[in-house]
């Protein structure tokens, strides 16, 4: 039942939870998943997946049209060089992100590594989700490890976008590949002008996207997403590769 609903309306995939079966690494068993086993092709295996192009239960960007996007909610402000150990301490890396239960648990630990100086925590103790939709950062956000658990935990916690002055490349790439959180570049040091708890809206438009801080009344231009745009717009690396003909498309 769940699977057929998913094929009718991809947005439902976010709300469906799969039964907790023993094979902890496969969240969905769609009857539409079939594997066409053939001999090895010269360049790549002709693996055919009959899932719809909006892949997983965890990606949110894939389910919505990409041309015009709005994020609205509370801001959580952090400083420079927020590394992956602060985003998700290594002791939680035993949680496997492609497992639905563990995905949720990862979200509950998002940004728990921030020092005690951050009195207001991103996820309240005892909660699973955050009340902050937008993270505002400084330079080099997401530096450190290549752990994909970092953008995943932020997305799992319920954050929608990060606005930072600059990103570490692996974090940025993982954000784009997973579609878990939308990474945006500000042109100025927005983290100095916003406070945790400010209400803000991000409007993504062709060319000029903006961040509006309703609490201060200030608006900030955001840089165009650049080369990552086509990948994000397609819904992540798999969807992009299908569109580019790199891997076979999902069957109609």
């Amino acid at each position, binding site marked *: 039942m769940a699977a057929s609903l998913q094929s009718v309306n991809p947005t439902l995939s976010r709300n469906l939870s799969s039964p907790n079966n023993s094979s902890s690494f496969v969240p*969905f068993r769609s009857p539409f998943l079939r*594997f066409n086993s053939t001999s090895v092709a010269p360049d790549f295996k002709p693996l055919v997946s009959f899932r719809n192009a909006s*892949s997983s239960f965890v990606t949110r960007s894939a389910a919505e049209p990409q041309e015009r996007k709005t994020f609205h909610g509370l801001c959580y402000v952090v400083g420079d060089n927020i590394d992956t150990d602060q985003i998700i301490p290594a002791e939680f890396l035993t949680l496997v992100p492609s497992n639905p239960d563990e995905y949720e648990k990862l979200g509950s630990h998002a940004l728990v*590594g921030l020092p005690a100086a951050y009195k207001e925590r991103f996820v309240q103790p005892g909660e699973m989700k955050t009340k902050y939709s937008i993270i505002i950062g400084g330079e080099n956000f997401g530096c450190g490890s*290549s752990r*994909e658990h970092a953008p995943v935990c932020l997305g799992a916690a319920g954050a929608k976008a990060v606005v930072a002055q600059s990103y570490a490349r692996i974090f940025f790439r*993982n954000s784009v*590949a997973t579609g878990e959180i939308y990474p945006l570049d500000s042109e100025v040091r927005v983290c100095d002008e916003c406070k945790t708890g400010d209400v803000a809206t991000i409007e993504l438009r062709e060319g000029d996207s903006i961040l509006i801080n309703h609490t201060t009344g200030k608006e900030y231009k955001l840089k165009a997403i650049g080369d990552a745009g086509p990948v994000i717009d397609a819904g992540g690396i798999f969807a992009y590769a299908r569109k580019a003909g790199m891997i076979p498309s999902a069957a109609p």
Partner: protein
Amino acid sequence: MASSVISSSPFVCKSSSSSSKKDLGFSSFTKSSQISIHRCQKKSISRKIVSVMAPQKDRSPGTTGSVKTGMTMTEKILARAAEKSLVVPGDNIWVNVDVLMTHDVCGPGAFGIFKREFGEKAKVWDPEKIVVIPDHYIFTADKRANRNVDIMREHCKEQNIKYFYDITDLGNFKANPDYKGVCHVALAQEGHCRPGEVLLGTDSHTCTAGAFGQFATGIGNTDAGFVLGTGKILLKVPPTMRFILDGEMPSYLQAKDLILQIIGEISVAGATYKTMEFSGTCIESLSMEERMTLCNMVVEAGGKNGVIPPDATTLNYVENRTSVPFEPVYSDGNASFVADYRFDVSKLEPVVAKPHSPDNRALARECKDVKIDRVYIGSCTGGKTEDFMAAAKLFHAAGKKVKVPTFLVPATQKVWMDVYALPVPGSGGKTCAQIFEEAGCDTPASPSCGACLGGPADTYARLNEPQVCVSTTNRNFPGRMGHKEGQIYLASPYTAAASALTGHVTDPREFLQ
């Protein structure tokens, strides 16, 4: 792209005018000038010059790329892997992958995505090009951690993965003939690193393998899941920053000092999205393990990858460990570099990175009043055979006992065996293990990533209290080794050993020379 604008940064020098003021021998640098240079550095990043260096010494020409448009080593490797004759920085290209590595932390997630996207019955693109190396959370009672190794075993069985360095007996690492330990050291030791190839790993320190003159970088689970199915990845060609290290390496200086020096120079974001290419007479004198240490921390400067031109040292190491054919490439004489740095290594001094950033550089001797609680020698950065040899050499020269708990975690089984078997030069035939015991260090532990990244609560040598630790590892952000208020000083093995003997951060020259 010929050079045009010359920036006013003091770090950039043209090869012809070698004014000693511009050379980066830093013994006379004070803290304040270091700060002002950082500011200058940050402002001048956007105006970085492209400088044309003097032609390279005798090198065989690259096999790809027309002579008219020169390419750097990295550009050539990627061009060949993308089956193109020419690429330039900024190009987004599909690249064939030679080796994909994963471990116990990211492997389950990567395979999970692979199955989700390609189907439950999907097969990997090439079961001989994937190397699965459990190393992160091994010697622990944490059930999820143990489960993750079991998950990888299932995947490897199902997919017929040729290289799975399995461990089943957690109580005795030696009882596991296949188990290796830290992935980046194991990759090198087992002959998976070859010049000219493209190696990806689900770990940021995959850049270590650039020491072998290949393109090596870290990727996330989703990218890895994609590679598992296709053997390809979409990459943007990075521009190259060149670091020329010349001069004779002082006896008390190690590759760790060199890379900490460089990261302190350019900051933790100084090489973001870029290649760091290391060359020069000093580089040529380094062993493979020292070159690995250098490339290992490229990611700490934000770098996409690090490369060192292969030479006789490289070929000697590689040809003893693999029979897979390979073809090295080298930067063209007319290649374009986005930045040029020169260092006179003979003028450098041992340095540390103070809490809480790898670019928080200070001279070791200027931190001599910092009281420490423990020393940790281990990890892909500082837990290789030569790292332990160096520490043992210093302990032996000093002839004293350590004043603080000193934890030793060999990176791999091979390293552990070397620590117990190889004689330390100048010690009259003693092994590292004997010297460590005489100095009062902890017994060398089971090989794994250990406490470098904290890990599950029962991880050996984890920082569970707000203590001060001198460590040969790679990152010191808050909470890195466990406790959020722990203070980690990153250092070379020499500096770590010297510090263990005094109970303070100590320049190794106190005991060497």
